[in-house]
């Protein structure tokens, strides 16, 4: 097929306006249309419905309801769990990432851990909760952890299971980005290992670490399945409360309550993810 006879989506050199060329961005319409329908529109519905009451009139009642003590409790619960599991995951994950990074780049261990991390980071939800149930739950094979059903510590142990691999996946490139020349240069200038980490390695890794921490935080905020399978009697967190309010029969009166909660979550996660993006950019500049 000759180059000149392109399909309609090709742009041609202007021919004095005789034939309007079809703009090439049209080719992206299917994708953007799809995303608009199944991502942007539902989000918009959530945002707008949060400001509407059950009969559809504009109201701020949903938003103000977010201020009441009970709702605050849910947000605090979410916050506590997310922060703790993020810290645990970040610190432990960083250690593991360092262990993986300091080995043979082509080695078996590295590939094993990376594949495992890829799968385990997705392995959340019900299956994970079951696994820990049989391990340290009431009929636990290993032992019965009395704190298993405690919030947030019991559930944090379960969260660690997918937070740590996620940390490895996200943080490993940063550790890889530490150039060996920096270590050698600081050594030849007289730095001990402690000096190196304190003045060079640490500061360079800090943005990436904080960014990863934020990502883990957002990840934990959004989790629902694991919580539900772990213990569905009492809602501790916002996602659980959203479910409760949506599934209760009286629910119709509460519909915009769920929307308001969801809106609150979106705002929170959006703030966290922005912070993550900014930190990533700084980290990438130094460690590319």
């Amino acid at each position: 097929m000759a180059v000149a006879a392109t399909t309609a989506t090709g742009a041609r050199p202007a021919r004095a306006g005789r034939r309007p060329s079809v703009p090439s961005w049209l080719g992206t319409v299917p994708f953007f249309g799809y995303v608009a329908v199944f991502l942007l529109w539902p989000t918009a519905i959530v945002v707008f419905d949060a400001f509407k009451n059950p009969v559809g009139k504009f109201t701020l009642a949903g938003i103000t309801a977010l201020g009441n003590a009970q709702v605050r409790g849910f947000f605090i619960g979410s916050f506590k769990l997310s922060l703790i599991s993020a810290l645990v995951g970040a610190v432990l994950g960083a250690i593991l990432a360092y262990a993986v990074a300091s080995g043979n780049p082509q080695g078996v261990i590295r590939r094993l851990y990376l594949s495992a991390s890829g799968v385990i980071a997705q392995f959340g939800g019900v299956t994970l909760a079951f696994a820990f149930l049989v391990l340290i739950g009431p009929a636990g094979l290993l032992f019965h952890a009395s704190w298993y059903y405690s919030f947030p510590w019991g559930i944090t142990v379960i969260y660690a299971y997918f937070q740590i691999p996620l940390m490895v996946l996200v943080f490993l490139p940063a550790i890889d980005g530490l150039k060996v020349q920096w270590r050698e240069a600081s050594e030849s200038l007289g730095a001990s290992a402690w000096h190196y980490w304190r003045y060079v390695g640490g500061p360079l890794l800090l943005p990436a670490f904080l960014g990863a921490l934020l990502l883990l935080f957002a990840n934990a905020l959004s989790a629902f399945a694991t919580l539900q399978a772990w213990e569905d009697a009492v809602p501790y967190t916002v996602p659980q409360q959203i479910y409760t309010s949506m599934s209760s029969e009286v629910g119709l009166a509460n519909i915009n309550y769920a929307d308001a909660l969801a809106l609150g979550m979106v705002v929170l996660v959006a703030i966290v993810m922005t912070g993550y993006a900014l930190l990533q950019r700084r980290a990438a500049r130094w460690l590319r």
Partner: protein
Amino acid sequence: MTSTGNGASRTAVEVRLEGLSRRYGPVVALDHLDLTLQPGELVALLGPSGCGKTTTLRLLAGLEDTDAGSITVGGRDITRLPASKRDMGMVFQAYSLFPHMTVRQNVAFGLRLRRVGAAARDKRAIEMLELVGLSAQADRYPHQISGGQQQRVALARALAIEPQVLLLDEPLSALDAKVRAQLRDQIRRIQLEVGITTLFVTHDQEEALAIADRVGVMREGRLDQLAPPTEVYSRPATSFVAEFVGLSNRLPGEVRSGEVTVRGCTLPLVEHDVPEGQVVALVRPEAVTLASHTSEESGPLVGTVIAVTFLGATSRVTVDLGDTTILAQLSTSDASALPAGSRVALTIRPDPVLVSSSSTVDELVVGEEE
């Protein structure tokens, strides 16, 4: 350039490497290397990749362990000392500046480690930056300055701690050709001004010849020759050196009464006690001159130009002599008169030449045998 009194405050030291050996598994990187650097001299280690020059430098720096041998600096044995205690300044090939620190902070880093006060640190850092001509960039970050400037900062950083020895690991290899030449001269100037004993590793023979007091040509973990640049060039100790440094023509000849006859030309020898007989002589292209040859007669020194390679100020002309080809190096204006296809007559300038008596040119007889 401001005189900063760097050299005056410290006396240069002698560096002695004795019997240095290093292997990686089955590969011998260094084989009982002996090398002494005189105080204040710049020795360039030259050789192809894998010859051991970088290994030598890294062993001296303490970044790698020695398997055998000793390293003595200023009379003190430092073989067992870790890199951070060796008091050496090192400039790497690339990427060694800390990206999160400004130029000033980079240069002052070594001083900070030595707990020098902030004011004194800053003063010294600026001094060093002025030495390399970059004081205007003191508050920039590494990614904001060019590659050549980065290397100058790296040099300033290495010198800031007043080390006893300066180590440069192919510092110019990652730079553009133009920048390379300028920086090369600048490094040499600074080294002389500071008067510091320096080891410079490179694979570029032009660099080595241009700046070194002595050049050490290495191959497979050993030094083939360690001598001033002119000697390495005109009196190479082995054929490897002769091949690696500059170009040579290999021409058969015959040694008689202390001279060698090559294609009818009689040339003096570099070494005088070469046994008589058939040899292979190494003739430098710049010793070959060409003239246009109009007559019909042929001879051992008559041939046809096959190719002319333009190198800027000079050109290299390849001449087919019938039974062999020979390279000649002429000024470009002379070479332009002899395009491809012209018939030319050669003369070989009677510079002393090196000869080898074996037909495989790996070993050369240089005076008495080791």
